[in-house]
């Protein structure tokens, strides 16, 4: 059975802090790993990772994949209150997707 585990489950930081969110997986026929951000409504896409060691970057967010050790991290630098959300990791294998339980990030002013 495919498995995706995110840690920590929740995290509270102050504005300006840097956070690292973790996602480890065990799937057969790995195709890609995606990160999503969910605020009050539906998830929105952040990154898609298919190759090891190549960092994807968007503003203060960045992510990298390690296909040998089967994990990915999502970094957020200089956090802002608007970064407060649930961050979801999903792994796509042949014909299906498996989501982790998410990390709830709260950024305090």
């Amino acid at each position, binding site marked *: 059975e495919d498995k995706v585990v995110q840690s920590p489950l929740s995290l509270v930081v102050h504005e300006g802090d840097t956070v690292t969110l973790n996602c480890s997986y065990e799937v057969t026929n790995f*195709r*890609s790993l*995606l990160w999503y951000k969910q605020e009050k409504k*539906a*998830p929105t*896409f952040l990154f898609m990772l298919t190759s090891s060691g190549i960092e994807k970057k968007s503003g203060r967010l960045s992510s990298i994949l390690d296909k040998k050790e089967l994990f990915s991290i999502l970094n957020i630098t200089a956090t802002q209150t608007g970064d407060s959300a649930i961050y979801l990791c999903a792994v796509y294998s042949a014909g*299906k*997707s*498996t989501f982790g339980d*998410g990390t709830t990030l709260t950024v305090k002013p």
Partner: protein
Amino acid sequence: DTAVSQTPKYLVTQMGNDKSIKCEQNLGHDTMYWYKQDSKKFLKIMFSYNNKELIINETVPNRFSPKSPDKAHLNLHINSLELGDSAVYFCASSQLTSSTDTQYFGPGTRLTVL
């Protein structure tokens, strides 16, 4: 124009009823999905469907059935609703033949079973 739309946004109904949630995507995608997000915010996939294959998460009760009248629509029909069915249901779509697996989500339907 909304890429993935769902109706209704909110649905309140009694136990035992049968209800449907509709989903439409105008992205020309070949695959659509239904997810359930419970009160603890855990997102679980229920179905993925394209014109070739329906993949069902084996933990989904057979009271739930997806119905696809055409490639742009995947409706979710639920029979004999139970209290535990209360959740937010998200529809999503993607193009499996593209280089990206990005799924685009609808706004969600909040189902409350009384």
